[in-house]
């Protein structure tokens, strides 16, 4: 029987109080954004933010708890923008959103950083100490290597394939330093918005597999902003080393995603992007549960190991009250299905 898991890939909106205190401590300009060596006062604020994120998830009743990535000023480009071998260039658009991040220009070898591992360690400690955390376990969040390479500018490595491989090796090194985690989310929106060229699919899937192989945890390769191209989808199922592909059932044409799964099969587990991370309208748990059952019924397999119930994108696009409501909707939907 398929296990239903309520989870998110992280990147939460800062609580409103932290939006104020951190903008006062850090400033509003490009040069004020996080560089990874922030001072004590800023560290303390982020510690409080992290604790609040963990509480939010436990209060909602999610099955996986993430760190929440409050420090990620540059969204999923964060692991590079705080790296010593990276210079940050101009502010550039984050996918098709009214959001911007600093262009990470990779100018030297991407050696080990440990920035994300430190955050995850702290989240793990919070979870271990929390009341009522018995049913929840830790999930890690990273950008997938394809998207991270796509968002960055390569000024050091050879061609595109070399760069993807180098970013993958870097991310694998980061994962190796993570504390124990049950699930690893690799966010890969670029697979939909700017897919690999015909014939270059395996370069992307090899890079993802490099990162996936670095952990014993379940690996979810989460895609966003619509359906995957069918050929790329088939490559991902076969080659990416993912336990679950994450599919966006909110944006774009859902039928394309159903077609992919019917035609090319699926990973042993699936993650379904069911609640809209970019709209304040909060879904009813029953509606979310129906969508899960509907999607599972479209697929020829006997059943999956796990179905992850997730938002279709990161949640930082939302105001803080609605982000919490979305966590509640996911957890409640999983309960409806139980």
């Amino acid at each position, binding site marked *: 029987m398929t296990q239903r898991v309520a989870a998110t890939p992280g990147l939460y909106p800062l609580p*409103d109080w932290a939006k104020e205190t951190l903008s006062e401590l850090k400033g509003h300009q490009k040069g004020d954004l996080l560089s990874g060596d922030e001072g004590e006062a800023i560290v303390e604020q982020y510690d409080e933010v992290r604790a609040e994120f963990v509480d939010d998830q436990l209060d909602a009743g999610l099955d996986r708890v993430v760190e929440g990535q409050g420090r990620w000023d540059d969204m999923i480009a964060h692991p590079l923008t705080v790296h010593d071998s990276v210079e940050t260039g101009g502010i550039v658009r984050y996918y098709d959103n*009214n959001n*911007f*991040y600093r262009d990470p220009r990779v100018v030297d070898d991407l050696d080990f950083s440990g920035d994300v591992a430190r955050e995850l360690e702290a989240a793990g400690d919070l979870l271990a100490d929390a009341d009522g955390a018995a049913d929840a376990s830790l999930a890690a969040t990273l950008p997938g290597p394809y998207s991270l390479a796509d968002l960055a500018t390569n000024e050091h490595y050879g061609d595109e394939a070399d760069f993807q491989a180098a970013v993958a090796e870097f991310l694998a090194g980061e994962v190796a330093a993570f504390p124990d985690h049950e699930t690893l989310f690799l966010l890969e929106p670029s697979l939909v918005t700017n897919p690999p060229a015909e014939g270059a699919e395996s370069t992307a899937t090899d890079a993802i597999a490099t990162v996936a192989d670095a952990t014993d945890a379940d690996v979810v390769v989460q895609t966003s902003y619509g359906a995957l191209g069918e050929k790329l989808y088939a490559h991902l199922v076969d080659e990416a080393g993912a336990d679950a592909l994450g599919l966006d059932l909110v944006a774009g044409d859902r039928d394309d995603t159903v077609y992919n799964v019917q035609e090319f099969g699926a990973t042993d587990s699936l993650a379904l992007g069911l609640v809209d991370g970019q709209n304040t309208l909060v879904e009813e748990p029953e509606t979310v549960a129906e969508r899960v059952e509907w999607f599972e019924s479209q697929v020829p397999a006997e059943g999956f190991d796990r179905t992850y119930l997730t938002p279709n994108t990161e949640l930082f*696009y939302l105001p803080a009250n609605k982000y919490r409501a979305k966590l509640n909707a996911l957890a409640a939907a999983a309960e409806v299905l139980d």
Partner: protein
Amino acid sequence: MVRNPDANRDQFRPHDHPNDAFLLTTVVGSYPKPKWLNRADELVEDPDSKFDASDLEEAHDDACRLVTREHERAGLDTVVDGEMRRNEMVEFFADRIDGYEFNGPVKVWGHNYFDKPSVVEEVAYDEPWLVDEFEFTSDVSERPVKVPITGPYTLGFWAFNEAYPSTEELVYDLADLVNEEVEKLVEAGARYIQIDEPALATTPEDHAIVGEALERIVSGIDEDVRIGLHVCYGDYSRIYPEINDYPIDEFDVELCNGEYEQIPTFTDPEFEPDLALGVVDAHTAEVESVEAIKENIRQGLRVVPPEKLTVSPDCGLKLLPRDIAYGKMENMVTAVREVEAEIDSGAIDVDDPLDD
């Protein structure tokens, strides 16, 4: 199709204009707020302060007088109040339109946030949005006043849509409300309206939605009213030549920021509305020299003849230090008047404007 810019341009030509050639000078709209006004906005929120809403209104009036005068002093042919009463280009309108609600700030980048509203039911017109603002500015100004309005595409797509089956349908309903507001502004005497649609630059494939929204906005608006459209920071090859079909008099665009790399896009086929060209950068805190601005103005003459060229900064100037913003406007006007004189004398060949 394009409206009739010839029918409304001359009303903005000052009686004492010194040259035969006339390049209309204007600004996009926003201007740095005096620091005391920001303090006043905060003070009114402070429960311990005696500073109340009527004090704030007085402060806004004072700021509008001051900034409108500052625009006149720079020598502009058409002026604005620098949007002293407005907080943010979507929030200000969402606050006045029934159907929107606010849930709290969302991130744009870094620690820059915006109170992105949600549309939770059908939008509806309640009280006028800008008529008081226009009447006040008109009273204090000796020059014609331009009114910038955030366009329906931006008001729709830079909000969360909870209520409409598609955001396109929301945009058309909003366009009908903008039309109602434009009618009221025209009744109050406004003759120069600028629709701001920065969201179009992020999703140029939606140009047809913006076109349909503009048709609704200008419905019933006489041709003596000048309708401009401002877009900024986009890839214009994706919306040109389609904008030649828009029912507008003037297309206002930032190209100084990109060093006019995109000018050739607008030269083929022939550009139909008047061109309002950005000739000073809104995001660099140095005042461009008159000579440099004159070179930038010549770029516009590659696209349209002088009688169809309007000159403005790239975008709203609100993020600049105030003295820099003023310096840019002042040098811009000086540069325009010198270019006009050089066109009159034949020193600039309008058929080959970059040739010295």
